[in-house]
């Protein structure tokens, strides 16, 4: 009976979207609750829930304080911003993956694999160490990462287009080449860094980690995620049609050139602000859309919101693992996602070449 109900909801041919979204939102909430509690110092999920409730206006006063001040500081000051950032970063990375895959019409596109992360990191490091973009103030890191991401996407896209089509070999090779070039540039910039403190910050940031998350880090990525999600959801038909190919999309009423430019902009904007707060966390944009499509098929109206939720949940849990595995040492999240995502990438590549 239970299997029947499950099959009815998670049925590829006719998934019950309302139930799936509800279940995933619940999973995301529970993940955040556990994610906040887990770490070198553990706080029980019930206590976490109470601490959070006590902060809610109106009903907060009714909650008896049964926890220590230390717990409260850990939950509110350290873990909660980190978990929230994990949700936003994970969701953004997954949605960037979906966007780039529609743009190049290929499953294997991911900001990390195609060198977009490296490009963003290179320009961002330049800003960080030499203050090139200091005149942009508070957002200089995000804006420089955005510029790096945009330049890389345009490069990779232009190089891999042969006779108006994206050639998969060219795409992956140009991704590899550009990420090597950009990593080299980053190396040169860090080696010639004028001050040691900046260098330390840059190295820590580049390793791809959510440690050191502050509430202030959250605003920009969250706003950008919401805006970009809205833009993408409005254009979900266009994204679907792009997967048919440029000519078919054009014949079905899509202004292909315009939509492609919009997608480049959306993907680089999200990549820029995400990478600015978390460094480069690879393969989330590859893994999450893949599993989402297995669950609900290729329709972007379903793929976009579900990828965002799954991406958030994935990064929250991988981040928990990152701070638990070698506790009290921190492990960069990027290393863990690479260990999980790399084999999946190879599997997809093998399957692709069989077809």
């Amino acid at each position: 009976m239970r299997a029947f109900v499950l099959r009815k909801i998670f049925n590829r041919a006719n998934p019950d979207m309302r139930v799936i979204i509800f279940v995933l939102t619940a999973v995301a909430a529970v993940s955040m609750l556990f994610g906040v509690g887990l770490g070198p110092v553990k706080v029980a999920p019930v206590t976490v829930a109470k601490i959070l409730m006590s902060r809610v206006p109106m009903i907060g006063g009714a909650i008896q304080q049964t926890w220590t001040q230390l717990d409260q500081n850990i939950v509110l000051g350290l873990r909660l911003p980190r978990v929230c950032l994990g949700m936003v970063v994970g969701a953004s990375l997954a949605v960037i993956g979906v966007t780039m895959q529609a743009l190049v019409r290929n499953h294997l596109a991911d900001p990390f694999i195609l060198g977009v992360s490296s490009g963003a990191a290179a320009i961002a490091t330049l800003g960080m160490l030499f203050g090139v973009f200091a005149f942009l103030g508070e957002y200089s890191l995000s804006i420089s990462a955005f510029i790096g991401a945009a330049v890389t996407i345009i490069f990779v896209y232009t190089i891999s287009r042969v006779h108006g089509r994206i050639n998969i070999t060219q795409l992956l090779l140009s991704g590899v080449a550009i990420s090597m070039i950009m990593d080299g540039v980053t190396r040169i910039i860090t080696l010639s860094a004028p001050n040691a403190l900046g260098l330390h910050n840059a190295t820590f940031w580049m390793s791809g980690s959510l440690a050191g998350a502050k509430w202030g880090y959250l605003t920009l990525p969250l706003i950008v995620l919401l805006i970009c999600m809205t833009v993408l959801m409005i254009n979900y038909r266009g994204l679907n049609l792009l997967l048919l190919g440029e000519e078919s999309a054009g014949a079905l009423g899509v202004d292909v050139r315009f939509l492609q430019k919009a997608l480049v902009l959306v993907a680089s904007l999200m990549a820029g602000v995400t990478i600015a707060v978390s460094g480069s966390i690879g393969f989330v944009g590859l893994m999450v859309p893949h599993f989402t499509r297995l669950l609900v098929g290729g329709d972007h109206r379903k793929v976009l919101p579900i990828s965002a939720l799954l991406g958030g949940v994935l990064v929250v849990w991988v981040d928990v693992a990152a701070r638990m595995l070698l506790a009290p040492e921190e492990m960069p999240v990027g290393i863990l996602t690479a260990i999980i995502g790399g084999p999946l990438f190879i599997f997809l590549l093998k399957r692709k070449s069989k077809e």
Partner: protein
Amino acid sequence: MRLQIENMTFSYGDRKAIDDICLNVKEGEFVGLIGPNGSGKSTVLKNLYRALSPDKGTVTFDGENLFALSHKKAALKLGVVGQENDVPFDFLVEEIVAMGRSPHKKFFDFDTEQDKNIVRHALEHLGMEAMAKRNYLHLSGGEKQRVIIARVVAQETDFLLLDEPTNHLDISYQLQIFDFVKRLGVTVLSAIHDLNMAALYCDRIYVLKDGKVILRGTPEEVLTPRNIFDVYGVRSDISVHPATGKVAITYLPEALGGAKHSTTP
């Protein structure tokens, strides 16, 4: 006059792919574009559905400049079946067909009950209703092509541009697809590879060679042994088949002594 092309020229780089093409299609006609490989059939169609944009020339569609229409408006008037039918992503047959409804949709519009009916009817017309929930990736070539035709049916335009819609299909699918298009009763401009197919279905034929229109007229006027030899370099015998009343072409290959056949020039 539904579609009028005047002096259309297009080059890929230095190579002129089509050169000073003039062509017209009247209401309700089925017009065929034939010619050897690389003669520019696809290029003409691509310039019409704006996958390419011509270097020179004008295209008038229902009295308006076709290129001044927005992509969406054009998609409400012109349905296209191109040669690009691979979808490397996971979609159901009914989802692919439903994409034909997109030019009718504004931002934020979801698929209505009416759209679903149109999609269902389109699939029924092609005898594919049982496959609605199948994965498009796993279909055979002929089935995919029928899905694409169903998509253009769901698009509900009364003018179709078809680019060799029966390429690589076996003969039963070829006849089925052309029969189906004919039954729709819409105006059609189609590139056709197979001369016998062109003879069976076209009201008029344009023959392209090296990017130029070299012949035009009814199948009876155009498909003569001399013309076929001039264009393709192949000897043939032409008869009007008693059952179809249409021109039927029999090719006379060299190996079977075709060169010596009496009716060839």
